[in-house]
């Protein structure tokens, strides 16, 4: 992997035949050019650009947190703070539901954790076919900049696991920038919230996991 660098749209990242254009790039003649503003990265010939700012763009497989916006006859329309609304179909709910009582399962305004299982021209399809997904019953939800989500999660979940262990709260990070915190005590939830905000504000510092440990020692 080569060194990461900031690229702007239209800038040539690499030239030569041995490279393949990945996300955020395009092939033009013999060069790979960036089509979005962000950090360029090259792994085994595949060149891509990671966006650093802007709105959330849904990807297949993302875990997201959304708000029920409407109830239809066969599912729920969910706002996941993306340009398009997402749809959670009745068939993607792992238990029996009376077709006349969809509101009783999830009503307008309820928050839900779901996974994006398909994106097509018509829209985004969600699924809650797993133990971790479903309606949010308790706890608090905070919103952060979606571009800071990888930092909050950390390398293989190191950052979020540290916050979980230190506060004893259960934390679910949605890729769209919504974070669900639930703990047994409100103080712990607030501490977790403060920790997440600390991470987003200091996101450019290296070795942030250690800094966060120090911060926790001071806060307690």
């Amino acid at each position, binding site marked *: 992997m080569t060194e990461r660098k900031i690229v*702007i749209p239209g800038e040539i990242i690499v030239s030569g035949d041995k490279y393949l254009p990945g996300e955020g790039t395009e092939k033009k003649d013999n060069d790979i050019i960036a089509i979005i503003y962000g950090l360029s990265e090259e792994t085994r010939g595949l060149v891509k650009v990671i966006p650093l700012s802007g709105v959330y763009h849904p990807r297949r497989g993302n875990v997201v947190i959304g708000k029920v916006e409407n109830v239809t006859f066969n599912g729920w329309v969910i706002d996941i703070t993306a340009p398009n609304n997402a749809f959670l179909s009745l068939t993607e709910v792992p238990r029996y539901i009376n077709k006349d009582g969809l509101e009783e399962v999830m009503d307008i305004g309820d928050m839900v954790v779901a996974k994006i299982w398909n994106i097509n021209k018509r829209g985004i399809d969600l699924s809650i076919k797993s133990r971790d997904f479903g309606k949010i019953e308790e706890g608090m939800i905070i919103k952060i900049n979606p571009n800071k989500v990888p930092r909050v999660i950390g390398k293989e979940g190191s950052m979020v696991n540290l916050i979980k262990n230190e506060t004893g709260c259960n934390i679910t990070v949605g890729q769209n920038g919504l974070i669900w915190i639930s703990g047994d005590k409100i103080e712990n939830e607030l501490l977790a919230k403060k920790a997440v905000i600390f991470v987003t504000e200091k996101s450019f510092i290296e070795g942030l996991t250690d800094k966060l440990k120090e911060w926790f020692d001071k806060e307690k």
Partner: protein
Amino acid sequence: MAIKRTDGRKFDELRKMYAKVGVVPNADGSAMFSFGDTIAIAAVYGPKKMHPQHMQDPEKGTLRFTYNMLSFSVTDRIRPGPSRRSQEISKVSEWAIDPVLMIDKFPNNVVDVHVNILQANASTRCAGINAAVLALAHAGITMKNIVSSVSIGKLDKELVVDVSKEEEDYSEGEGATDIPITFTGDGKLTHIQLDGKITTEQLKEAVKLAKKACEEIYEVQKKALKESIK
């Protein structure tokens, strides 16, 4: 008698430029660009769902550009709100940016660009386009390249780069002439306007001058984008 520019610049010298990215915290992308006393702030919202629904385009996205001159931006207070002039500039700026934007990646969506002129001393549409394109890049919109815009003026027979208000109104000799020109980063023309009179030969020369100036502006824009992340 040789003509001199009122602020003592060389004929091909631009005013002091300043660009900054990320000036509006609530926007998805924002930027500021200034040519001397002309200051433009651009804010980008979206891509978001187009509303009303009948304006949605399922084949490609829509770019909506709004140019607005604030009432205190000029010496005589201008009436706030949309005017014939601001609507025209909005449309023209939209067309200047549209060729580089890969808006087809966002069907049914709209990208809103709001450009406000805080201070005006001629070349406001150029400063607006320069700020808008930085804000669009900052908002993570896919585009083939970025554009840079500059205005070419004419003091009698002499072509000048980046006109100020006095030069724009210089009516002696051949009369006041103002030519805003926009180039992409790889030297393709996306927008040219002409207000006044000019010969074909001189127009060719003006385009050449603009191309050189746009390269300079491109470097300023590039630097602003690269330095916004530390």
